[in-house]
């Protein structure tokens, strides 16, 4: 008798798991944004709308701060958008893996391409189970937690205990570590991550962390790419590591394609 197999694809299950991990980090940050937005003079509806349509943590906090200081329309919009320039890299990086998707699905899934969703997507690419279902479920859960957290912050404000807020403030960093570690397969990956970290730290020291993240992406990727090109056997070792990793996680690109069909 054939074994019963539930029809939940590997990609959807991984997407949900990843989405809940991101939500663990998003929720307290979104609560803090809801609180900050109210303190900046926005109504609860405006705070919620900001999370619904902008959906970009750093620039939302900056918008709230600028509005509180009475910044002009142009200054507030330009500053918030400048903070999000780094997102250009995200779409470009995922584009080669999204070629077979219908254009409307590319357009829909691009909306939720936050730092965290991109980090999860990038890790999924390296581990072999990136796809529409993975990205869709990851983004759906993350987006819901961001909007819900904003509403909680806007309406209930200081309801979370301080100790829990402190602990949860590390959730996104812990998530990034958990995403990065399995993606480090080649020496050049380590170099890209290390150089990216160093550039971000330097930019933060100079007072421009958001532009620093963009610079870190460019400089770190260039360093990793250069090392990967010059190290002859590096690519082969990475390929083998990738296959090993796909076996460990029980996922493969082929399975993802089969699940989607």
């Amino acid at each position, binding site marked *: 008798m054939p074994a019963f197999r539930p029809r939940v694809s590997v990609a959807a299950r991984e997407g949900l798991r990843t989405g809940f991990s991101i939500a663990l980090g998003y929720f307290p940050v979104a609560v803090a944004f809801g609180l900050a937005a109210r303190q900046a003079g926005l109504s609860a509806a405006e705070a919620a709308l900001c999370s619904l349509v902008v959906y970009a943590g750093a*620039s939302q906090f900056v918008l709230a701060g600028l509005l509180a200081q009475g910044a002009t329309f142009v200054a507030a919009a330009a500053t918030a958008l400048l903070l999000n320039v780094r997102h250009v890299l*995200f779409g470009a*990086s995922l584009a080669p893996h999204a070629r077979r998707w219908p254009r409307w699905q590319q357009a829909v899934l691009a909306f939720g391409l936050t730092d965290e969703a991109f980090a999860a997507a990038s890790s999924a690419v390296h581990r072999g189970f990136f796809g529409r279902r993975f990205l869709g479920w990851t983004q759906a859960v993350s987006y819901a937690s961001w909007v819900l957290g904003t509403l909680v912050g806007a309406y209930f404000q200081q309801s979370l205990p301080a100790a829990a807020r402190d602990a949860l403030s*590390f959730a996104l960093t812990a998530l990034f570590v958990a995403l990065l570690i399995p993606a480090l397969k080649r020496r050049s990956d380590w170099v890209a991550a290390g150089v990216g970290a160093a550039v971000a730290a330097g930019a933060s020291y100079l007072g421009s962390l958001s532009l620093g993240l963009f610079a870190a992406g460019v400089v770190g990727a260039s360093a990793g790419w250069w090392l990967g090109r010059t190290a002859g056997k590096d690519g082969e070792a990475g390929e083998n590591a990738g296959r090993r990793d796909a076996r460990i996680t029980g996922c493969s690109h082929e399975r993802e394609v089969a699940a989607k069909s």
Partner: protein
Amino acid sequence: MHGDILALLLVVGLGTYLLRCLPLVGLTRRRLSPGIEGWLRYVGPAVLGALIASGLLTPHHGLGFSAAGLGALLPTAAVARLTRNLPFATLVGVVAYGVLHAWLG
């Protein structure tokens, strides 16, 4: 809801969306050179490294790093490496950070 705030949110929302959407939709229709595709492969690890560093930096202290954050890195990385379980590794990191933050002050 104020009209100017509504307009500002819509402009920033639309601009942010275009920054995310145009490269994804635009670049899927053209074949990139292997060199550029190879370079783009490293953007993920580089951005993740940068995000981790920025999460460990203490605000307004120059290049100061959070001791609790640095301490919580090891168990998080170890659990991620051993289990490859994302929610569990994240939770371990949060608990480790909470304990260290309460302990170190």
